[in-house]
């Protein structure tokens, strides 16, 4: 008996997970052959059976334009942030840091996770603490002046908005207080 009754993934999610794990297996072996696919399927089934994951609550729809915009901003921010941090390391200046609280507008684990992931990779921020019940992220900012705090706050919300515009349904956008149809 499982302690977590809601950790019962649906059948559709199962199939996708198995397909993905098999693809990873084949890519790791580097050769598309029947034996590799069969072995991958066996391993995938074993993994899915023995390590069940909580199912992801996804009600949105994938928007290609939003996804492209999200990816473009992500690459640009990653480059800018990397150069900034690298430069700071090279010059050896002591950075002044801050930890700020950002309340996200959506109430979905998936978007909270994605936003937190992207935040950690892009503009000078690492997520220190996340409260999934209130949808609050605590973000550490490297090298800020006082005026930057408001900017960083808006940046995190902008990332969330791009995630929502890439994956959210109209209802979820409206729920988060965003304009639909842009």
């Amino acid at each position: 008996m499982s302690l977590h009754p809601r950790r019962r993934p649906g059948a559709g999610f199962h199939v996708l997970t198995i397909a993905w794990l098999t693809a990873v297996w084949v890519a790791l072996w580097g050769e598309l052959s029947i034996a590799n696919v069969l072995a991958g399927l066996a391993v995938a089934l074993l993994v899915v059976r023995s390590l069940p994951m909580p199912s992801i609550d996804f009600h949105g729809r994938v928007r290609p334009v939003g996804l492209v915009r999200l990816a473009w901003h992500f690459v640009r921010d990653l480059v800018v942030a990397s150069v900034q941090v690298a430069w700071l390391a090279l010059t050896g200046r002591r950075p002044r840091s801050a930890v700020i609280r950002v309340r996200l507008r959506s109430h979905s684990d998936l978007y909270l996770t994605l936003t937190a992931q992207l935040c950690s990779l892009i503009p000078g921020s690492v997520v220190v603490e996340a409260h999934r019940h209130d949808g609050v992220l605590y973000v550490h900012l490297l090298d800020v002046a006082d005026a930057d705090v408001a900017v960083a706050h808006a940046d995190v919300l902008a990332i969330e908005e791009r995630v929502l515009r890439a994956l959210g349904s109209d209802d979820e956008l409206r729920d988060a207080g965003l304009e639909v149809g842009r």
Partner: protein
Amino acid sequence: MSVLLDVLAAGCLIAGSALAFAAGLGLLRFPDLLARSHAATKPQVLGLLLMLLGLALRLRSGPAIWMLVLVALFQMVTAPVAAHMVTRAGYRTGKVDPSSLVVDELTDDLRAAEREVGGSSQGPSPRS
């Protein structure tokens, strides 16, 4: 054509190693745990991505490229989680000095939550 690709690959490899070097320097030079986690996520991840891109441009074979794509994907998924776990643990075990922060809304909120439960130290709290 292949010369051009080789030159691009070399550029990517050099830029990638420069960023990895800067990340290492950041780990050494930054003053505290939180700042170091930045060095371990951003320049390090982009450095690795550039190295992988350089390798892909040089190797130019299907299976190798798929493997490089997987490495890139897993790196981008795991690096932020690792940084988050380390900083979170650091915060909760008092390895973070709130006085070194310009603004610290997490410590403020933790204190407020402590007062709400009647001053008894429910859960972890950062040392001041």
